[in-house]
Each structure stands twice: as structure tokens, then as C-alpha cells.
């Protein structure tokens, strides 16, 4: 239905004065075609391709001539990106703040990605951090999170959180829908739980202090998924601690459910429902040895039950 027809429909119902109609019509006639987000996506894709390419390139020709030149060039570009981002940085505020240049945020992102490449390379080639491997991820994590708050950049925050999670041994691959890590190892699992609790606490405190409140949802999504994955993995991998993990998972899901209702967040409702359902279903089938009919009945009852629950909850939110 074209805007013109909508105007006609409004006019037919005597909802618009002739003047309003002419004004809106002229705005529509002179409307420009915005390619803002298309161009930003192009820029974004370029940055990701470039850093992926160079990230692989520096290992490929490691012993060739020109290699040091490449490293040097990348270092210069990286420094230039940070310099650009700093030069055009908007004034710091507790709320949202914007770079004074349209490219400030992208320069910062490119700088951070190149920093990661170069830092990894320095450790690989010169073992910069010796055997303290944790530093290789912990350092960028701290740097990125600090930069994210200083420059108000959600992408860099996500990078920092990814690095932090990888520091304890869990890899996040959202495009493949999975967290990878040795969650059969109790130490990794407990670190994941501890880290997510720390992150959530940090997120809540900052939110309470009204510092960058628009970051809260990103932090909580990362921490929440990490915590829920760790607890579900605990349930799967450690039969002797079933009770503990069940209680922890139940409390976490209930907590997210409560938080989602308070904050009107549909994402957290979905998260608690999905992970909770996986946990419950696992326990049911682990302890009950049902025949086929009972299994199908379980699907029917739970499927309908959760559908009803989700639609009634979403109306209340």
C-alpha cells in the first residue's frame, strides 16, 4: 500500500486537513533514499574481511622478506585507528555519547581487531608474555572493556566480553550457535559460573549507578548465556552433582524470569525458558525410563504448557 493510498484512506475518513495532507504528500515526494545502514554494513564487512585476511596473512608468510614490513604497516594502521578514534572522541557521559566523526566508532573497532592480531602475533613469534598464556586474552579483555566504556561502543564491549570468556577457556561462536570449551572439566565450569556471576553483579551495579545503562543488556546476555550453558553442561557431565546443578539452574531461570518481567525484556524470558526446558527434559529422561507413548505425551504436555506460558507472560510484560 503506497503512502499516497494511506493518505487517501485517512482523507476519506476526514482525519486530515487538506493542509496536513499537502505537507505530508510533499515530504513523501521529496523523500530521499537512505543508504545509511547499507553503507555501514559495507564498512563493517570490509573491516571484518580486512582483519581476518591480515590476521591469517601474518602467519602465512612468516619467514619471507617483507613480513616485518607488513607487521609494521599493521601496527601503524592500528595506532592510526586509535589516534583517529581518540581525536574525534565525544565527551564522556554516563549515558550514550557519540564520536564526533561518522568513522570514529569504526576506527576504534578496526584498531581493536588489529590490536588483537598484533598482540597474538607478538606472543606467537616472541613469546611476549612467556608462559603466562592467560594474559594474552586477559589483557585485551580489560583494555576492550575499558575502551568500550570510555568510547561508548557496544561492539568493543562484546569483544571484551568474548575475550574475557575465552580467558577462562570457553569459546563463543554465536553464528554457529554454540559455546565451546572444556565444560567437562570442573575447574573450567566453575570459572565460567564464577565469571558470569561477577559479570552480572558488575552489570547490575553499573546499571544501578546509572553508568552506561544501555550496556546492561549486552553484559547480561553474555553472562546469562554463559551461566546457563555452564549449568546445563554441569547437569549433563556431572551426575554426582545433579541436585546442586538442578537447584542452581532453577534459581537462575527463576531469576531471569523475574528480571525479564521487571525490565520488560523478552530475550531473557526466552533464555530462561529454553535452558530451563533443556535441563528439565534431560533430568526427566535421565531418571524416568519411559516408553514411546509417554515420551510423546511429555512433548504434547510441555509443548502446550510452555506455549501457553510464553503467550500469557508476553502479554503481562
Amino acid at each position, binding site marked *: *500500500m503506497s503512502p499516497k493510498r494511506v493518505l487517501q484512506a*485517512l482523507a476519506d*475518513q476526514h*482525519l486530515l486537513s487538506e493542509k496536513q495532507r499537502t505537507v*505530508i504528500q510533499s515530504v513523501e515526494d521529496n523523500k*530521499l533514499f*537512505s*543508504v*545509511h*545502514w*547499507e*553503507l555501514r*554494513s*559495507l*564498512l563493517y564487512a*570490509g*573491516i*571484518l*574481511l580486512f*582483519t*581476518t*585476511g*591480515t590476521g*591469517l*596473512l601474518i602467519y*602465512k608468510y612468516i619467514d619471507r622478506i617483507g613480513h616485518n614490513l607488513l607487521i609494521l604497516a599493521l601496527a601503524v594502521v592500528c595506532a592510526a585507528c586509535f589516534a583517529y578514534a581518540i581525536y574525534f572522541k565525544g565527551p564522556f557521559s554516563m549515558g550514550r555519547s557519540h564520536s564526533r566523526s561518522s568513522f570514529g566508532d569504526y576506527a576504534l*573497532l578496526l584498531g581493536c*581487531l588489529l590490536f*588483537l*592480531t598484533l598482540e597474538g602475533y607478538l*606472543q606467537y613469534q616472541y613469546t611476549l608474555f612467556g608462559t603466562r598464556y*592467560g594474559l*594474552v*586474552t586477559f589483557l585485551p579483555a580489560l583494555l576492550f572493556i575499558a575502551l568500550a566504556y570510555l568510547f561508548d561502543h*557496544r561492539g568493543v564491549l*562484546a569483544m571484551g566480553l*568474548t*575475550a574475557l570468556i*575465552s580467558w577462562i*577457556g570457553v569459546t563463543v561462536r*554465536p553464528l554457529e550457535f*554454540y*559455546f*565451546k570449551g*572444556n565444560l*567437562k572439566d570442573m575447574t573450567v565450569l566453575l570459572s565460567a559460573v564464577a565469571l558470569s556471576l561477577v559479570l552480572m553483579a558488575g552489570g547490575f551495579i553499573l546499571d544501578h549507578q546509572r553508568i552506561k545503562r544501555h550496556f546492561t543488556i549486552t553484559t547480561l546476555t553474555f553472562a546469562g548465556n554463559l551461566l546457563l550453558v555452564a549449568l546445563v*553442561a554441569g547437569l549433563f557431565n556431572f551426575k554426582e552433582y545433579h541436585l546442586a546443578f538442578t537447584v542452581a539452574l532453577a534459581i537462575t531461570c527463576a531469576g531471569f524470569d523475574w528480571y525479564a518481567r521487571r525490565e520488560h525484556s*523478552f530475550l531473557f524470558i*526466552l533464555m530462561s525458558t*529454553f535452558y530451563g*526446558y533443556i535441563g528439565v527434559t534431560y533430568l526427566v529422561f535421565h531418571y524416568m525410563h519411559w516408553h*514411546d507413548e509417554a515420551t*510423546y505425551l*511429555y*512433548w*504434547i504436555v510441555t509443548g*502446550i504448557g*510452555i*506455549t501457553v506460558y510464553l*503467550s500469557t507472560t508476553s502479554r503481562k510484560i
Partner: protein
Amino acid sequence: MKAYNETWVRNRYILEQVGRWQRQGLLDEKKMDQIRAKFPVGFRSSNGFIEIGLFVFSVVAISGSYFLLATSLSKLFGVDLFYHFFNIGFGIIVGLLAGYLINRRKYYRSGVDNAMVVAAVALVTTGIIGLFPNNLSLWQYGCFALPIILLGVWYYSDLLLTMAAFGTLVTILFDWMLDFQSGKQLLPFVLMAVSVGLYIAARLYENRDALLYWRDNFILLEWLSLSLLLISCNYFAVRQLNFWIMENRPTEAPEIAWAGLFWTLTIVVPVVLFYLGHRQKERPMLIMSAIGWGLALATWRYYHPLFSLEAYLAINGLSLILVAVFLIRYLRVPRNGFTDQPDEDSPKEFLLNAELLATVQTTSGHLGPKDDLRFGGGDFGGGGSGDRY
């Protein structure tokens, strides 16, 4: 007579457009309230995340019911005919239930109704196909399925069904063309012609008032047909396809007939799409032309590599950055009706989330692979022995 209240669908579009004007400051809140009162929408509003959940759990419930009934009736399935009628019957029941819920609970693309509609149409289609003899070709079954799916699209205007119908059509053409001698040669051209035809039809009907109920379906069809066009004219795709359908496959995909023509099309089609998209200010065309250029470049690199893949990634990434930076600077002032100022039409939230996900993915890529080389060890990286969720 359609599944959803057509007046509400129409009012929904009107309110969407009016909402845009309000955000631009062209209408005040009082006027908006008057308009909302005159154009009521009774559908229950929902949210993307909840819709995903509702869809998934509705599928769980439907599958549970299907298998429960099927198991309890399995003794009767010795006769094939009974099984097919069971599928049709179950599909009709799900469809009736969907209709009841749509009316009673005011669902409109809320996840529950999507799941039920897709399940109903899938089951009825499977059942009806089962009634036909077993020795027909795939395209013949496709021809029986397509009208039923299209009927579903007509009644429900469901987007998943639209995709299914498009997929069925492509399958029919594919399978049918391979049946005769010259079909293999002609297949890419037929697919190109069909996609261009469908695209033009979709553009023609997209804005018709009488067809408003299916507006989203036509827009989806535009995207689907442009994607098919890019694939069916791509040299790499045609050559690989030719290779897959060969009976005795050599080790490598052999050169195809009219190679020059396909190379030309690979490069020319995105250029034409860009030209037309630029002239007509059509977002799908412009975006697909950009993707087409990417495909053309990747195809060229595949057959005529000058540098390594890494070098290509870096060079192309850099060129993309430069092009984007140039265009953003160039469009600071509007030119030819194009601007860099964001507007209401762009899917901002979606893009932001996609960007965030891509960043995370790349970051973990940077943190990942080298670990195994030198500093993998015990305390991080974990060697990939984890579970997938």
C-alpha cells in the same frame, strides 16, 4: 475469505505508515489517537523473541501429538492408504485448530499459528502425494504439491509457506529439465527467465491495494527471485551444477559449454542490478547487486587466483572500507535522491545485532586458532573437546 481478518491487516499497514509520519513529527499524538480509533487492529501484538519460542514449542507439541497418534494407530498402517489418509486427516485437524486459535486468540504471525499452518500444509501435502503411485518422478510429485502449498499461501499469506512454494517450483524445474536431452543446457537460462519473471510479477503486484494481504509475500518473493537469478547466472554455480549431475564424474569439474557467456553474465547481471536499483531506488536490487559483485569476485578468484586467499581477504576488505568511506563522505549531502542520513525504513535493530554477532565471531576467531599452535596447553583453549549446544 482468508485466515486472518483482512481489514485488520490493512489497518496494520496504515498504522505502520502513519507511525512513520508521527516519528518524523508530521502528526501529533492526538491525531494519532483519532487515527488508531478509526483503523483498529485487533491482532495480539507479540515480540520476535517470544515468537521464536512459541514457534519451537508449538512444533514440539504438534510432533508429540502426531507421533502419539501415529504410534497408537500403527497397527493399521500396514495398509499404506490408511497412513496417507491419517496424514491428511491430522493435517486438516491441525489446520482447523489453527483457524480456531487465529479467530479466538487473535494470532497473526505469532509463532503458534505459523507452526500450525506449516505443519497442516506439510501433512496434507505429504498425504496427498502419498496417494499417487510410487514410480513417478520428483517433478511430478512437485506439481501435485505446488498447488496445495500455493493454496496455503493464498489462505494464510504465510512467509515460510512462500519459501516452500518457491523451493518446490525450483525443484520441479530442475528435475523436469534434467529429464530431456537439451534440458541440462537450458536449465540455467530457464531458471534465469523464471526468476526475472517472478521478480517483475512481484514488483507489479507488491503495491496493489487488493493484494495487500500478501504484500510481505511479494517482497519476500523479490528477494528469493533475485537470489535465484544471481545463482543461476553464476559461472561457478553452473559449472559445479553441471559437474554434480554428470553420470560419470571426472576428478575435476569440466569446462562448460558457453563458458564465455556465463562469465559475462556473472559480471554483467550485478552491474545491471545496480544500474536498475540505482535508477528505481529499489533496496533489494541494490543489496543483491552488492552481494552479486562479491560472488563474481569470489568466482573470479576461484578460477584465476593471483594471490593467496588471505591476501584477497585483506585486499578486498581494504577496498570495501575505502569504497564505504568514500560513499559515506560523498553522500553527506544528498545526491541523486540518495542520502547517508538514516531513516525509518532501515532495519536498524536487526543490523546492529547482526553486526554484534559478527564481531563476536571474528573476535573469537582471532583468539582461537593460534592457541593450538604454541600456547594452547592446559588452561585455555581446551582443545575443542567440549559439547555443542
